[in-house]
């Protein structure tokens, strides 16, 4: 299902620096629903600099979307700023999504599938972040804000597609 996209198509390949490299980008945006897509697209473009498969880039998009949506919905009922930073170190992508909003009282409860403090929401945000990335770490202080850190490694392609 995850076709690698940087197999030398024809002769020369493109944009993706397959060997892994170091890079960093920071993004600050108003916590608005219409900015969730912007965050997703930007981090996907960043991740595409190394040879993540198309399926993996889709997974990264979901994870980023969940983290930023949470900041919009839960952290800032009155609005605020979300900071996203992303780093590539060799073949490792790290993404941090940070707000200075409401914070989470009980982080381990929040991570449970189906747990949500908001009626009508699915309680799957953290589940998706964990499933679609290699790992996730949540730092939160009630009244001070939340920082979600996630990472995913870009594994070398073995033979055909995985």
């Amino acid at each position, binding site marked *: 299902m995850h076709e690698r996209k940087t197999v030398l198509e024809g002769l020369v390949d493109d944009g993706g620096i397959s060997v892994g490299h170091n890079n960093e980008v920071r993004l600050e945006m108003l916590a608005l*629903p219409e900015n969730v897509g912007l965050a*997703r697209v930007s981090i996907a473009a960043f991740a595409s600099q190394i040879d993540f498969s198309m399926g993996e880039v*889709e*997974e990264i998009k979901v994870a980023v979307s969940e983290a930023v949506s949470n900041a919009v919905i839960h952290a800032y009922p009155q609005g605020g700023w979300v900071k996203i930073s992303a780093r590539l170190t060799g073949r490792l992508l790290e993404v941090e999504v940070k707000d200075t909003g409401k914070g989470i009282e009980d982080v381990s409860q929040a991570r449970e599938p189906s747990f949500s403090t908001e009626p*009508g*929401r699915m309680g799957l945000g953290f589940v998706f972040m964990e*499933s679609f990335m290699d790992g996730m770490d949540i730092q939160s202080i009630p009244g001070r804000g939340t920082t979600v850190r996630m990472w995913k490694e870009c594994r070398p392609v073995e033979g055909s597609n995985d």
Partner: protein
Amino acid sequence: MQLDHEIVAGNLVFRVQGELDLNTAERFRLYVDDAMDRHRCYQAVLNLRKVTFVDSSGLGAIIGRYRRIAQRQGTISIVSPPPHVLSVLELSGIKKIIPVYSSEQKALAPEARMA
């Protein structure tokens, strides 16, 4: 996100295009509920073939429609989700409660509507 609907053999077929996320979930909800209420038809088929992105906010909107339709003794099915949308449906467990078909024809077949 763009939405379209058509009545086919007594079913409301919704065709969704683009991204189903926090920014578009509410418009999806309003559109689907309004069309069903206006046509008094609670047999829904969601064609997701042209959906480019779904996250848990988008899934929440789909599950919300499922609940509302179930209350009205209707049916709902999903058609042609692309691979990355399918993996989100699977991970969420939605696939266990809403049937997924590979084409509108299959979703509309009398055998399917029995389920």
